[in-house]
């Protein structure tokens, strides 16, 4: 049990060390590495090796050892860090990470992957290094003849000044010899100065003779002097009966202890440098389950808070009641607690981005393209779950960008682009959301081709009128990409629809912006927190529902002049000279609106990814407040247009709507009409 806890700690530490390694290697690639960086890179590998050895993880140790030896040559400037070496070091870093992963999962190392890199690493080593190598790994086996009965050994040692300076105490040696068998101890004092004034405590004056009986050989004795044999002129030999005894002063049983060297008064005090020492102990490791329990409790607290505020309102207290002030304080505190708890779960995206560096390298190698992945905003913090669930979508998108977006060097040469493509992966926090962008400087989306594929898959009709944005969004349509359509690099049986589903499940949105010849940007917008969100409480046909505040641009009470109609029942809202489709939420959910006329109702102008903007018609706006998001997927499966549910102050359950999905249903058809109308308008002017 103890061991498995330490093993867990080891793997956790490896994660940190691998990040440090990857950072350092990145700096080396950028030419930003100073000596300390090189040392840190070396230390990361060295620490992994050292700790892995304790658990007998031979594959990790063996690889780390060669890796470390190369790095040692790099840091001692025996090896120049050219492009070829850097590439191998990067690969070695990846392999080391793989080996650690394999060790964690108790899987054998993938020798097909490991060995070529190992050989490449070795090619940088001098034969000298490699010979040393074998020496280190050679197990030392000794065989010696064992005799039936023990014999007597005489041990003589004369501690020098260095012996004492290295922290040794003769008494301890004698006592250790005594543990081996019966001893007689004698001390030779002839070198002691006769005048005490000549005595220098730092010098060694005494020679000890210890006769140890009952020994099979001198190995155990020599082991005691393992660290000090060269500091005390050690002599060990087997005694024979006629061995002449040295002329010594005999000592009885008691062993005289040599006084420990004391402080030298003249020694100047050394100020210690304690500055940096405390910092590393300032993090706390907590079982994530505890944090999850806390988050659930905070969710309940927020529900409870809305129950209390509802009760207080129903009690119709006088406006002057102090209870209102207290309630506000309570809300403030609850929000603070909630933010505090979410901050505990927040993690920087850095480890996630680091993984993408590797994905990009591998994808670039596989496609024969030169790609430089630049990461920005690595310190941006997102919820732990987001970090975990974004890994697959990001991997897929990075692969796609390199496979389909960035051109081959020879094609790039035909334009004025540099031969090396740049892929930027950025994270930032923008007004209550986290935005992650994947920006390539490639050829942009081939919209003609996308349309062709979509038509051939029956996703759209051949004569469909689609805006550039809508064509781009076909990428996310289920069934758009199939294994036959994508290369074996990006295609792993999943298409962009899976990416979109994953991001939607996190309460996020994804947008594409592509310019032919200049590149494509995928923007993922995610809520800051997952468990609690700011919602607008609305009424529709007697139902209470919640719309996420992040997707609402503005709310409008339309005048009849703001409304227009296409066909029999397609309504449009005219806003600032533009038309946006109106989606009646009541109609969408099959309930009866409180009024048939839109002018009696409220429109929520929504920003969506698929049809840019649309207006959702609701009966009324009730309130704006924090709601606790409860997933319904486990019980009801995926319901289009609904992203979850929450419990309101009065204990009722309200559904949280997914504006994107709502807009996607009717919006697509409608926006085609709008564009047709616009084009007509342009044609006539």
């Amino acid at each position, binding site marked *: 049990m103890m061991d498995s806890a330490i093993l867990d700690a080891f793997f956790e530490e490896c994660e940190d060390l691998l990040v440090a390694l990857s950072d350092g290697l990145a700096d080396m690639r950028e030419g930003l590495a100073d000596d300390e960086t090189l040392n840190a890179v070396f230390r990361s590998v060295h620490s992994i090796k050292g700790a892995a050895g304790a658990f007998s993880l031979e594959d990790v140790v063996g690889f780390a050892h060669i890796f470390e030896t190369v790095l040692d040559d790099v840091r001692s400037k025996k090896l120049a860090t050219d492009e070829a070496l850097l590439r191998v070091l990067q690969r070695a870093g990846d392999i080391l990470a793989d080996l650690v992963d394999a060790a964690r999962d108790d899987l054998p190392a993938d020798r097909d992957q490991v060995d070529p890199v190992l050989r490449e690493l070795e090619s940088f080593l001098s034969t000298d290094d490699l010979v040393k190598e074998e020496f280190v790994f050679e197990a030392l086996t000794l065989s010696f003849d064992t005799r039936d009965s023990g014999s007597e050994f005489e041990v003589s040692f004369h501690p020098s000044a260095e012996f004492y300076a290295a*922290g040794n105490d003769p008494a301890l040696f004698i006592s250790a010899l005594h543990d081996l068998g019966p001893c007689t101890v004698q001390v030779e004092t002839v070198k002691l100065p006769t005048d005490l004034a000549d005595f220098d405590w730092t010098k060694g004056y005494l020679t000890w003779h210890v006769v140890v009986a009952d020994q099979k050989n001198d190995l155990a004795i020599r082991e005691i002097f393992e660290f000090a044999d060269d500091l005390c002129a050690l002599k060990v030999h087997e005694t024979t009966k006629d061995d002449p005894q040295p002329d010594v002063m005999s000592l009885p049983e008691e062993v005289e202890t040599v006084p420990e060297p004391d402080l030298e008064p003249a020694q100047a005090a050394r100020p210690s440098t304690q500055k940096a020492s405390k910092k590393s102990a300032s993090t706390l490791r907590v079982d994530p389950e505890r944090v999850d329990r806390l988050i659930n409790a905070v969710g309940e607290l927020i529900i409870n808070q809305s129950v209390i505020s509802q009760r207080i309102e129903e009690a119709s207290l006088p406006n002057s009641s102090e209870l209102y002030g207290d309630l506000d304080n309570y809300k403030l505190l609850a929000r603070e607690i909630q933010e505090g708890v979410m901050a505990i779960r927040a993690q920087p995206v850095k480890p996630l981005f680091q993984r993408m560096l590797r994905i990009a390298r591998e994808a670039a190698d596989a496609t024969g393209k030169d790609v430089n992945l630049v990461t920005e905003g690595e310190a941006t913090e997102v919820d732990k779950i987001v970090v975990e669930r974004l890994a697959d979508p990001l991997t897929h998108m990075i692969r796609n960008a390199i496979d389909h977006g960035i051109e081959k060097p020879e094609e790039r040469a035909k334009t004025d682009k540099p031969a090396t493509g740049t892929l930027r992966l950025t994270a930032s926090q923008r007004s209550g959301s986290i935005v992650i962008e994947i920006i390539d400087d490639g050829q942009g989306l081939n919209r003609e081709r996308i349309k062709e594929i979509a038509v051939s898959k029956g996703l759209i009709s051949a004569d469909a009128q689609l805006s550039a944005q809508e064509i781009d969004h076909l990428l996310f349509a289920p069934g758009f990409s199939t294994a036959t359509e994508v290369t074996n690099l990006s295609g792993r049986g999943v298409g962009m629809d899976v990416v979109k589903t994953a991001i939607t499940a996190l309460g996020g949105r994804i947008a594409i912006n592509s310019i032919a010849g200049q590149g494509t940007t995928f923007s993922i917008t995610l809520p800051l927190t997952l468990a609690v969100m700011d919602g607008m409480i609305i009424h529709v046909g007697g139902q209470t529902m919640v719309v996420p505040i992040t997707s609402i641009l503005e709310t409008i009470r339309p005048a009849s002049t703001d409304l227009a109609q296409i066909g029999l029942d397609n309504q449009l809202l005219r806003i600032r000279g533009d038309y946006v489709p109106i989606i009646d939420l009541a109609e969408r959910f099959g309930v009866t609106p409180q009024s048939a006329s839109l002018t009696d109702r409220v429109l929520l102008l929504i920003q969506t990814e698929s049809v840019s903007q649309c207006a959702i018609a609701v009966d009324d706006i009730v309130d704006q407040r924090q709601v606790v998001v409860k997933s319904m997927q486990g019980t009801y499966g995926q319901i289009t247009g609904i992203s979850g549910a929450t419990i309101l102050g009065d204990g009722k359950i309200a559904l949280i709507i997914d504006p994107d999905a709502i807009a996607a249903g009717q919006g697509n058809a409608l926006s085609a009409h709008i564009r047709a109308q616009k084009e007509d308008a342009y044609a006539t002017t």
Partner: protein
Amino acid sequence: MSAHILAIDDSRTIRALLTATLEKAGFAVTTAVDGVDGVAKFQEAQADLVITDVNMPNKDGFGVINDIRQGQVNRAVPVLVLTTESGAALKDRARRAGATGWIVKPFDDEALVSVIKRLTGT
């Protein structure tokens, strides 16, 4: 009275292993995360023996030994160097730095404990 060991290593895995091994053997253990922390802790706490890693940030193991040996406090304390290196070169370097002895990683629990017992007289 159990001997008090100060263990200095930047790897928390090794620190955990040392702590577990030594505490099981009845020693009191204080850990430090790098050389600078180690020297600071050494001055605060009465250690009967110091085990230090060599490759560490801020100050390496030889720097630690140097500070201890040149310092005012308990400067004749036995210091064991814990390292993955082996061979004569290490022995020479450790010796010149003033180390009492050296243990090669990965260490054998029993050997480590027996060396410490010997060096602390427990």
